[in-house]
C-alpha cells in the first residue's frame, strides 16, 4: 500500500499528470505555479518524458498544440497573465480539437495584479479566454488530493472529448501542503483511439490534417455545430459537484475551488450555532452543474455565492437557479490582505440568514 504523502499542491498537479501518462510538458515560469515546471524538469527525464522551458507562454501553448496534435499526453501550466498569452493557442486547440491539459494556478489581477490568492480567472476559464466562441472542460479542485485526482481526470476528459481541459487552481491550493494519497492511474478502457493525430501517414490512404480553418460553403458552421454538440454531451455526462446539507437548508452557500475551503469552515461554524446552511460546490465549473442549483433553489430560494473575486460564478448561479431565487454575493478580489477568513464568511452567513 502506498503511503500518505505530505505534498505541496503544485507538486500534486505534476505528480498526477505524470501518473496519468503525461510525457510532454512545456511551460514558462510565473508565480505562483513555478513548482510545477520545476518538478517536471526534474522528473520528466526520469520517466523518459520531455520537458521544455519555452521562450514564452505563447510558444509553450503552441508546443502543447503540436504535441497534442501528434497524439501525445501533454500539459502546460501557468497563472492568469500567462493564460492570457496562451489564449490564442487555446482557441486554436479548441477549434482544431487538440486534447491537452492546461493548469491555471490563479493569482489576482487584472494586469500584473499580484501573486497571492484569487479566483479572478473564472470568466477567463469558463467563458473562453480566446476568440471565436468555444468551451473548455474546466475542473476546480479544492484540495491537494483533488489537484492530483482532477489533473488525472482532466487528461481522460480531454482525450475522450478531443478538446483542451483546464484545471483551475489558485495560489492557496498551489502553495499549501496537505496529505495526499497517491494512487495508480487506470486508463478508462473506452477512451477513443487517436486515429486523427499526425504521426506521418505510415500507409494511411489520406493524410491527417489537424486544423481550424474552414473556408468552404457551410463548412465552418457545420464544424461549430459539431463542437457545440460536444459541449452538450459534456453537460449531459460530465457534471460533477459536491452538495451537502441541502435537505434542511434555509440558506445555500455556494463556492468553488480554494474559496470553498473557507466557506466549508464557515458552514461548520454556522451549523454549530444551529443555522441550517447547505453547500453546493461545483467541481466542474464547465460543464456547470446547473441542474442541482435549479432543484435546490426550488426548495431553498436563498443562495449566497462566495468567491475570491468581485462576482463571476454568481452569474452562472443566477442563470441556473429556479425562477424567483434570491441569489446574493459576497467576495473580495484578492491581493495582499484581501483573503477573507472563516469568521468573516460566518458573519455574512448570519447576516444573509436573517434578512
Amino acid at each position, binding site marked *: 500500500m502506498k503511503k500518505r504523502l505530505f505534498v505541496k499542491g503544485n507538486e500534486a498537479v505534476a505528480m498526477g499528470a505524470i501518473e496519468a501518462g503525461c510525457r510532454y510538458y512545456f511551460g514558462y515560469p510565473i508565480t505562483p505555479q513555478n513548482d510545477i515546471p520545476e518538478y517536471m524538469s526534474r522528473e520528466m527525464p526520469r520517466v523518459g518524458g520531455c520537458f521544455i522551458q519555452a521562450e514564452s507562454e*505563447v510558444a509553450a501553448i503552441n508546443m502543447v*498544440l*503540436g504535441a497534442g496534435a501528434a497524439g501525445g499526453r501533454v500539459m502546460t501550466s501557468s497563472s492568469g497573465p500567462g493564460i492570457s498569452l496562451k489564449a490564442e493557442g487555446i482557441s486554436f486547440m479548441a477549434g482544431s480539437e487538440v486534447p491537452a491539459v492546461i493548469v491555471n494556478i490563479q493569482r489576482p489581477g487584472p494586469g500584473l495584479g499580484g501573486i497571492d490568492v484569487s479566483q479572478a480567472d473564472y470568466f477567463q476559464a469558463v467563458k473562453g479566454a480566446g476568440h471565436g466562441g468555444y468551451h473548455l472542460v474546466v475542473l476546480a479542485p479544492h484540495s491537494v488530493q483533488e489537484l492530483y485526482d482532477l489533473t488525472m481526470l482532466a487528461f481522460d476528459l480531454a482525450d475522450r472529448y478531443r478538446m483542451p481541459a483546464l484545471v483551475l487552481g489558485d495560489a492557496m491550493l498551489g502553495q499549501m501542503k496537505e496529505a495526499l494519497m497517491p494512487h495508480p492511474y487506470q486508463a478508462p478502457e473506452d477512451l477513443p483511439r487517436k486515429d486523427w493525430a499526425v504521426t506521418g*501517414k*505510415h500507409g494511411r490512404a489520406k*493524410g*491527417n490534417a489537424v486544423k481550424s480553418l474552414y473556408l468552404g460553403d457551410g463548412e465552418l458552421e457545420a464544424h461549430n455545430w459539431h463542437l457545440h454538440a460536444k459541449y452538450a454531451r459534456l453537460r449531459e455526462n460530465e457534471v460533477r459537484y459536491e452538495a451537502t446539507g441541502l435537505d434542511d437548508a434555509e440558506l445555500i452557500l455556494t463556492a468553488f475551488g480554494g474559496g470553498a475551503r473557507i466557506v466549508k469552515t464557515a458552514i461548520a461554524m454556522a451549523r454549530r450555532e444551529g443555522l441550517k446552511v447547505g453547500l453546493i460546490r461545483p467541481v466542474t465549473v464547465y460543464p456547470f452543474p446547473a441542474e442541482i442549483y435549479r432543484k435546490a433553489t426550488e426548495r431553498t430560494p436563498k443562495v449566497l455565492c462566495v468567491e475570491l473575486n468581485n462576482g463571476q460564478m454568481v452569474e452562472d448561479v443566477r442563470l441556473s437557479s429556479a425562477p424567483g431565487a434570491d441569489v446574493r454575493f459576497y467576495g473580495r478580489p484578492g491581493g495582499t490582505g484581501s483573503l477573507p477568513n472563516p469568521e468573516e464568511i460566518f458573519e455574512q452567513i448570519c447576516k444573509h440568514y436573517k434578512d
Partner: protein
Amino acid sequence: MASNVQTVFQRPSALKEVPTHYCAGCHHGTVHRLVAEAIDQLGAQQQTIGIGSVGCSVLLYDYFDIDVVEAPHGRAPAVATGVKHVHPDSVVFTYQGDGDLAAIGTAEIIHAANRGELITVIFLNNTTYGMTGGQMAPTTLPGQVTTTSPYGRDVTTEGHPIRMAELLAMLGGTGFSARVAVDTPKRAIEAGRTILKAFEMQKKKQGFAFVEVLGACPTNWGMSAIDANARVEKEMMDFFPLGVYKDVTADGESNVFKTV
C-alpha cells in the same frame, strides 16, 4: 514503341494532383514542388509531418499528401517542436512566409533555432504580406511601396528589412542556414538541392535547418508575372544575397554559391 517510353518527369508523390489557389507567377507553387521532391528523394512521405502557417500557404494540407498541423500565425516552429518531440523519428518541417516568420513569429523561430530543434524550416520571403493584400512586411525593401507603406518604406521610421538567413546562422543550435531563389531554372535546381540538404540534416540530426527562398508576388507587387520574376534578381538579391550562411557539415570555409 511503348516499352521505350520512360518517365523522366512527374508530379512528386508527396504533392497531390490538385490545382493550387496561387496567383499566376507566384513562387509558392515552385517551392511546394521542391519541398515535395525533397520528401520523395528522402523516401520520407510516410514519415513526414508538415506544419502550415498563416498566410498564402495556409492550405498546405490541400496540396501535400502528408500529415499536416495548422499553426497559429507565427507559431509554426513551436508547434513543430511539440510534434517532433512526440515523434522523434518523423520528418517535421514548417513552411512560413515573411510576416509569419520574421514579424509575429520572431521569438518562435529564433528560439527553435537556438534550441537546435531537429526540424526543417522553409521560409518564403516575398517582401510583403500576400494573403492580407500586400501590406509592409519585415522584409519589405527600403523605398518599397506597399498598402501600409504608401510612400515607400522609410527605414528611419519603419525600420530595416530583416535578413533572417544571416540572423539565424549566428545561433548555436542552427546546423544549416541558406538563402536561395527560384527565379531561373538553374537557381530552382540549386534551391531544390539546398532544400534536400536541409531535410537530410534533420534526418542525420545535424541541427536546426533553415532555407530562405526569395519569392515573387506579382499580385501584391502590382507587376506582371514576368516583371515580378525579374524583380527577384534585380531588386531583392542585392539586399538578400543568395548563399549558405551556415553549414555545420561543411569543411572549412562556407561556400557562397558559385553560380550566382
